[in-house]
């Protein structure tokens, strides 16, 4: 390939070199201060600056365009499931629990008295099993085997989560442990996903305490942090419910 050569006067060379280096220096300084400005933005009460949250919300809106209940987490044969699923995260489940006395409280969005469900009310619905690759926000993953009922079946059967007298869902579902020490917020589309389950068994055995007895959430379209153990309370809202790890600077959505 031929070279592009030209003949320039010394003056032109000097001028071009000077302006190029001046521009380079200005851009470098500008870049440095842009980074200083960005990393120095004041954090909000959820530990990230407003701007960063805005970009994460933008990412979420793009995800919404692609999200579909037809996109399923890959499932595996039972033999692939871990015998002892990894334990991670004990906030909200440290106290002992009497599973006989346990009730799931569903708070009325319109201020009526809460409805309380026993485990047998939940187990009355068609049982579902899932063997999928559980993904932790830390970066590890493990194939696990859980059983329970579809979250959507629960809401439909007991007519929960829709605005009174309409066919319209509340935009979010909030879940909390009985001691309210751990809590998550979930968008309704992920809650209604066919693989989102309220589980009471792991590897076909009743849930042990540290796996979230008596009832836990399994939501394969989200990172592990959203898979709340030992559900105590459920509520509905059009604004994002409080979320434990969101308050520590994690993305609210974390859809996979």
């Amino acid at each position, binding site marked *: 390939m031929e070279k592009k050569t030209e003949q320039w*006067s010394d003056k032109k060379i000097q001028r071009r070199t000077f302006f190029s280096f001046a521009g380079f220096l200005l851009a470098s300084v500008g870049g440095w201060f842009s*980074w200083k400005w960005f990393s120095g933005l004041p954090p909000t009460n959820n530990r990230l600056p407003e701007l960063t949250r805005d970009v*994460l919300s933008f990412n979420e809106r793009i995800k919404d365009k692609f999200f579909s209940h037809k996109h399923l987490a890959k499932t595996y044969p039972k033999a692939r499931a871990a015998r002892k699923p990894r334990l991670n995260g004990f906030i909200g489940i440290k106290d002992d629990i009497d599973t006989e006395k346990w009730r799931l409280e569903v708070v009325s969005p319109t201020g009526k008295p809460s409805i309380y469900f026993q485990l047998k009310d939940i187990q009355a619905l068609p049982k579902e099993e899932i063997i999928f690759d559980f993904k932790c926000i830390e970066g590890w993953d493990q194939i696990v085997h859980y059983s329970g009922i579809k979250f959507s079946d629960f809401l439909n059967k007991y007519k929960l989560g829709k605005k009174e007298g309409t066919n319209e869902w509340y935009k979010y579902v909030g879940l909390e442990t009985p001691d309210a020490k751990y809590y998550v917020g979930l968008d309704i589309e992920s809650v209604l996903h066919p693989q989102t389950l309220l589980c009471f068994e792991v590897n076909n055995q009743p849930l042990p305490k540290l796996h979230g007895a008596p009832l836990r959430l399994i939501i394969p379209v989200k990172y592990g942090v959203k898979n709340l153990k030992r559900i105590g309370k459920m509520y509905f809202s059009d604004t994002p419910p409080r979320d434990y790890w969101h308050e*520590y*600077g994690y993305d609210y959505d974390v859809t996979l």
Partner: protein
Amino acid sequence: MKEIEKKHPLAIRWFHWINFPILLIMIWSGMLIYWANSVYKIQLGDWVLFKFFPPGFYKALKVPYRLAEGMATHFVFMWIFFLNGFLYVLYTLISGEWRYLIPNKHSFKEAWQVLLHDLYISKYHPPVKKYNGAQQIAYTAIIIMGFGSIITGIAIYKPVQAYWLTWLLGGYGFARFLHFILTIGYVLFFLVHIIQVIRAGWKNFQSMITGFEVKKTVETPKPEKEPTPVIEP
């Protein structure tokens, strides 16, 4: 007058110098994320040769316990990384610059000759031109790697929505590994790149800022002297 060679168009210089700090931020924030599950190592049997990364390395760079910050930063700057790379590729295609960059059938032989020369094994160096075979291969490979980082990134960012992509890349765990290996690739590229830039000298480096390189002084033809009058007064 001097003869200059026009080397790098302004657009390419901008893309190059924007990419440098952005890639640095992506690697750094990626490390904050990787730390939370830093499982990769080079191992022969039971003998661990190298662990990515040693605790002292993390401590020196203040990496530990910054996963949330790392993820947020990664998912903001990924847009700039992507856009800059996308515009670069678009520019090379439209401007025809790609002709200098894409390896041809001679590139591999030439790259081998350059390698032998630069390792002081051979004295022969192929004729100097804008990009030699080794450069063509390296600069094309780095673009393919960038594309690889984007697709493996999507595969681990949205493994359920982009399930087919994750599957194509060998599953969630393997896609994460590829994403990591590509990053190691950038670091190695960077090291070799710096060494080669130093070896090539200041004039070459300067051309990445000014766009041109001064080649040689051209004798300016002197205006002919007026002949002295021969007529006697």
